């Protein structure tokens, strides 16, 4: 059955900050452009998860009157803390001794999901057509090899791949320019980077996994506007990561943990590190007596400038973290993602109106403040490959004394899937039992995400070699998927004395960690049926 097709000037894939900013800027430049935006979640915001302490720089440029437009940006940062955690103790680091990039007094504590919902309203008012519930599952190419657009996922396919009665074929959305704004490790962006060799001469991309919980806490423990970060315990000196604790409005605290996916020990469980972190006396006293109301996780970009691929190709652009514009030392990616989208819009406008080549995107990007920021930030993350202490000392010199202007660039040496050591060389980690008060098991956490995938559809986590998890990965690495997945999708079960690898794909919260960390790159994340996945509220 032939698919229907629809033509637009610009087709945008993904309703996060970068995609929505691209859409808004395009319509501001020319209200007559036909712009559509596809989002795989059931509504804009439902797959968005972020800390988030928001720097308004890009938004000030995009919608200067945002304060008058009832935006969900309300809680100004009023106090900052940085703690080094030991097992029981904590050491407070004076904020004036923090590099400038980690100071937040002009920023706001926000829910990025709510910001995206609001940006989507602004975009729709300007005439952008937004289609939630429609994942782009396939890239379409012209005969000359340039990107022609995307096709949405067929709906109503059963487990075996047959059409059900409710079958609804996908449709082709064709654009003069297609913008990929899927976020970190977008499954189409990944294909484009490979096909057009966009990462040539770049370092391998670096990733982290970020967890977030929202707690409603007791009045006496709540300090609206307070931003706290920690480093140290429970991670060892060789594992990159840290926490955030943001006191938002309505007595809520956004509590989270980020761990670099370049960790070495296959027994490490990022989820359990996060749970254990909450038992530290300095953290426990904040959430004690409170109630956990949300949970979620998402992979994020940590590679910075060295790993940033070329962002243009014939017929298409990559924006935001589909390319990787997050500023790691700043622990912020929303403002850079938005700005990258705005620059993309300017590029497309000139491409369509003046027939300029899309390669001007790179020049414009290099002249922007995003590039300046990422350039100054570039040496921080790689320095932590020497361990926490040396990383901090180097970062102090690099960021405070030299303001990111040291005349050399450190490299990222390995991709994250290459860093695991064989299980027999590493020691098991004994994580404490969950108390169901401060710490919780994965099942009850996943329940809070509201994730769901319609029954009887093909498994959207594809194994290149279905035997590999048991024949190799279990043997060599004790199958780390059981631990790095934050949603309990992967299990090794015993059946008649035989080990069996089970994929509970309906639990998936679309974080993409498996696609990144699987040591043989054996797992590929593809889009499930539209509207599947988490239903995040104010994450």
């Amino acid at each position: 059955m032939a698919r229907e097709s629809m033509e637009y000037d610009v087709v945008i894939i993904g309703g996060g900050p970068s995609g929505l900013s691209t859409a808004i800027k395009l319509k501001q430049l020319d209200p007559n452009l036909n712009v559509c935006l596809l989002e795989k979640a059931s509504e804009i915001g439902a797959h968005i998860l972020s800390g988030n302490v928001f720097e308004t720089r890009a938004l000030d440029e995009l919608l200067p009157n945002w304060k008058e437009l009832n935006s969900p940006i309300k809680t100004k940062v009023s106090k900052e803390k940085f703690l080094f955690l030991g097992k029981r103790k904590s050491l407070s680091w004076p904020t004036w001794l923090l590099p400038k990039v980690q100071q937040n007094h002009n920023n706001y504590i926000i829910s990025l999901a709510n910001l995206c919902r609001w940006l989507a309203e602004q975009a729709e008012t300007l005439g952008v057509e937004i289609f939630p519930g429609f994942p782009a599952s396939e890239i379409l190419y012209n005969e000359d090899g340039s990107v022609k657009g995307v096709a949405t996922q067929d709906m109503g396919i059963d487990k075996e791949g047959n059409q059900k009665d409710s079958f609804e074929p996908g449709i082709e959305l064709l654009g003069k320019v297609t913008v990929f704004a899927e976020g970190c490790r977008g499954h189409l962006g990944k294909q484009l980077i490979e096909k057009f060799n966009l990462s040539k001469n770049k370092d391998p991309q670096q990733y982290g996994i970020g967890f977030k919980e929202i707690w409603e806490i007791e009045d006496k423990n709540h300090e609206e506007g307070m931003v706290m970060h920690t480093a140290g315990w429970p991670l060892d000196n060789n594992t990159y990561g840290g926490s955030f604790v943001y006191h938002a409005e309505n007595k809520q605290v956004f509590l989270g943990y980020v761990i670099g996916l370049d960790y070495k020990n296959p027994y490490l469980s990022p989820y359990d590190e996060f749970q254990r972190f909450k038992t530290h006396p300095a953290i426990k006293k904040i959430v004690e007596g409170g109630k956990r109301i949300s949970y979620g996780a998402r992979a994020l970009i940590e590679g910075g400038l060295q790993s940033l691929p070329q962002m243009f190709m014939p017929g298409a652009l990559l924006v935001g973290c589909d390319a990787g514009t997050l500023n790691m030392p700043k622990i912020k990616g929303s403002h850079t993602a938005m700005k990258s989208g705005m620059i993309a819009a300017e590029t497309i406008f000139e491409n369509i109106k003046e027939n300029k080549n899309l390669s001007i995107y790179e020049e414009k990007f290099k002249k922007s403040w995003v590039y300046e920021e990422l350039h100054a930030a570039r040496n921080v993350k790689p320095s932590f490959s020497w361990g926490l202490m040396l990383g901090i000392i180097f970062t102090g010199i690099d960021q405070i004394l030299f303001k990111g202007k040291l005349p050399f660039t450190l490299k990222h040496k390995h991709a994250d899937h290459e860093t695991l050591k064989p299980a027999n060389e590493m020691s098991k980690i004994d994580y404490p039992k969950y108390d169901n008060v401060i710490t919780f098991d994965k099942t009850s956490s996943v329940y809070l995400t509201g994730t769901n995938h319609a029954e009887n559809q093909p498994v959207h986590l594809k194994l290149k070699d279905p035997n590999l998890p048991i024949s190799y990965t279990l043997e060599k690495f004790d199958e780390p998927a059981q631990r790095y997945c934050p949603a309990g999708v992967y299990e090794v079960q015993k059946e008649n004395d035989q080990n069996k690898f089970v994929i509970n794909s309906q639990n998936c919260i679309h974080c993409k960690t498996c696609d990144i960390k699987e040591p043989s790159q054996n797992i590929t994340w593809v889009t499930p049926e539209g509207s599947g996945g988490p239903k995040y509220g104010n994450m």
Partner: protein
Amino acid sequence: MKILVAVKRVIDYNVQIRVKEDGTGVVTDNVKMSTNPPDDNAIEEAVKIKESGKATEVIAVTVGEEKAQETVRKALAVGADRGIHVKAEGIIEPIAVSKILQKIVEKEKPDLVFMGKQAIDDDCNQTGQMLSALLNWPQATFASKIEVKDGKLEVIREIDEGLETIEINTPAIVTCDLRLNEPRYASLPNIMKAKKKPIEQMNASDLGVDTAPKIQQIKVEEPPKRKAGIKVSSVAELVQKLKNEAKVI
């Protein structure tokens, strides 16, 4: 033949419901909302009947705040011809909804009114029955199969004892069960087309219906947490515990 289908906007069935701290209701801010699931079955059935040539028009109607229009738009995207949105704020009880629907029926003169058997938010299961009484029309509730015959409907009902087949005269009210059919997906081109279909808006007060609640809600609470189970070592201990602790025998 005209079919009127009533749809309601409710919290999505995948969302974990959270009770407001002050006990005045449940949290709906930034919560994903959807069409009440059995209402989707009602729309699907109406569209199917139209596709079979036995109906000429399907009208979707909803009662609620501005955003409730989304449910009508969704119905239009899966095949309804036009929509009506009766604006009303706050909690609107089944009696108010049925009075509003009565007015709409008097105006639109449909031959059939379909709706879900109940809404998953308040679980009232009253609107269809009340509308039937107000209009003095026959009703078939919990329908899992509907067959349109000349001036009549044959309906299979899902009841406690099993399945019951009844025949009723039209015009009639039918409330739909989830087993009735499998609702179709809204395709992208149809969502686009739905944006151009008309939705007539009016206020509940324009219809002369007072939507003020008749029931005073005192408090909304979470159900008590279940205690962990225990293992007993003997039948005697079980009986003793049922008698003295659980006090059920």
